[in-house]
């Protein structure tokens, strides 16, 4: 999976793509099928989409980005709101000369995708909100625990509640991978991302979305539940909803084949 950098809003932004590599500052070939921008969740990075980039790259032109201060993108501070992240992704599209794209996002990234469809409809062809919510319900103690990590009071707790019991039981390597992925980002950024998520409320805005939408949820997800997905589905006109079994908040890695075929089918119908 080749990667490269582009300067966006003063941030050296790292992104994953498919196809032949190009020289620095030369945008890779994005002519296959649809341009699909994959936006990661809070405190994560673009590599969390590696299964999707590899698979979708056969027919389409997927790009997974590292948001500012996440993964291999530069800087030590993220953004304070979901809206600022949306502005950043739009600036990323500008930097690569992409007019419109399908925007898929996981968790916080899903909120970014929905917000882009609301505020930048001319840049968004369709959206794929994955394990996300119009209004995140993050328990205050979870935020407080992350604040403790950011302040150095506590080590980051190893928890498995973002994964389906089936994943924890049979495919622990997925849990391990998820852990290794999120430790690539400063815990302070993860904390401010979580705060950005709690500030975000898109419930009243979703009715304005006039773009095709495929909503994906994990049946076992306790963080953004199937009920959260139902609400989004109910408010985005004409949207499709798929609830995938034996998956939770790390759906794209827990059930890559199901996720890939759902997205691929959706793209084929556009």
């Amino acid at each position, binding site marked *: 999976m080749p990667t490269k950098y582009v300067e966006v809003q003063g941030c*050296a932004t790292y992104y994953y793509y498919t196809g032949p590599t190009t020289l620095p500052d030369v945008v890779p070939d994005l002519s296959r099928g649809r341009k699909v921008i994959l936006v990661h969740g809070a405190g994560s990075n673009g590599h969390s989409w590696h299964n999707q980039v590899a698979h979708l790259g056969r027919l389409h032109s997927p790009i997974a980005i590292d948001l500012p*201060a996440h993964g*291999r993108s*530069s800087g030590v501070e993220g953004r304070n709101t979901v809206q600022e992240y949306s502005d950043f992704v739009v600036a990323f599209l500008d930097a690569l000369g992409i007019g419109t794209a399908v925007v898929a996002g996981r968790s916080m990234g899903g909120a970014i995708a929905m917000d882009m469809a609301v505020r930048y409809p001319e840049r968004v062809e369709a959206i794929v909100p994955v394990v996300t919510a119009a209004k995140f319900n993050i328990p205050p103690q979870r935020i407080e625990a992350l604040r403790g990590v950011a*302040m*150095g*009071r*506590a080590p980051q707790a190893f928890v498995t509640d973002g994964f389906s019991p089936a994943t924890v039981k049979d495919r622990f390597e997925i849990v391990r991978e998820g852990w290794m992925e999120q430790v690539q980002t400063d815990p302070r950024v993860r904390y401010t991302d979580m705060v950005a998520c709690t500030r975000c409320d898109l419930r009243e805005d979703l009715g304005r979305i006039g773009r095709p939408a495929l909503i994906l949820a994990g049946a076992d997800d306790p963080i953004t539940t199937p009920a959260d997905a139902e609400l989004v589905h109910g408010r985005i006109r004409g949207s499709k909803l798929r609830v995938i079994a034996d998956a939770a908040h790390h759906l794209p890695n827990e059930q890559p084949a199901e996720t890939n075929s759902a997205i691929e089918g959706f793209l084929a119908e556009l």
Partner: protein
Amino acid sequence: MSLSRKTALAGVFEHPARFAPNKSMFQIMAESVRGALDDAGLKIQDVDGVCTTGIGMSGMGVVGFCDYMNLTPNFVDSTSIGGSSFVAHTAHAAAAIAAGLCKVAVVVYGSTAASQRFAIGTGGGGGGSDPCDQYEVPFGPTTVGSYAMMAQRHMHEYGTTSEQLAEIAVTMRLHASMNPAAKYRELITVEDVMASRIISSPLHLLDCCIISDGGGALVVTSAERARDLKKKPAYILGCAETVRHPARGRRDFMEMAASQSGPLAFERAGVTPGDIDMAMIYDSFTITVLMTLENLGFCKRGEGGAFVGGGRLRYDGALPTNTDGGGLSSNHPGMRGIFLVIEAVKQLRGECGPRQVKDCALALCHGTGGTLGIRHSGATLILSNQ
């Protein structure tokens, strides 16, 4: 022959990056050299001396960097004595210029310690692969472990408390809050330091320096030439360096190199600790600052705990120390010596904005390299704007 006021720092640059996975070590170094030369009003063609070393380069890294920059200098120095190296390089460059070996020397450092996930204080062993390391390495010391041992000993001998050490971290953070480039700028309290988790007893997380990317560069030239350049020169008044080792258990391991390099530098500069307007003290850990201040003679051995209290080290206190936020809060890309000199020069020029020390005319930099309690180096540099 005295070196005093024969040479000066004509240009300095601190690279603003704190996390730059898109840059290489040499790139950060090259950008720093350009920044420092711009600051001085000089060109790369003027450079005929290069001093560098680093944790990311080999022992011959200076040669590779000259290749990267297409430089063929008349003077090179890659003295590698840990984080203090760049303070020593500045002294060596000054001596070389005074002796006519070169005319304009750059001292440069760069590192991508954070984006390459270097484990500096805890992950790596607190020792190298030299023959002498056989006496410690098998027992698994870490860098933080050795400094923690010093803190433990200081507490045992003199009753120093964790709260007193925390005061140092709190002051550094206050300074960082006034430095827009600092990595950690949110104010903290003594309680925050005490509540942060223990890394190696008695040192808490917030007693330890951070890990960042970054770099910086200095331009050293003759005092005469510096006076004709863009910025007000920072004259080199005195310098000294040495090392300390436990002498197979026969030396008090709380005696630092600073106890030798400090008095020597003061003598060469013709000043006393009481004359110093601001100090830049290598702060790998809070205990390093406290013990260095004692060993340099700012206070008596054992009095450091009381000395650092009461806001004395604040930018508006009696001995403003590490006004950029230090390695504890601003940046620590593996080695920090170069930033000590950069901030001191900026203070002497009056370029520090809200954290500017009033009437700052005489500054002291002291770098500590290696590991306290095992083997370490110390380099002291005294600078003045007059």
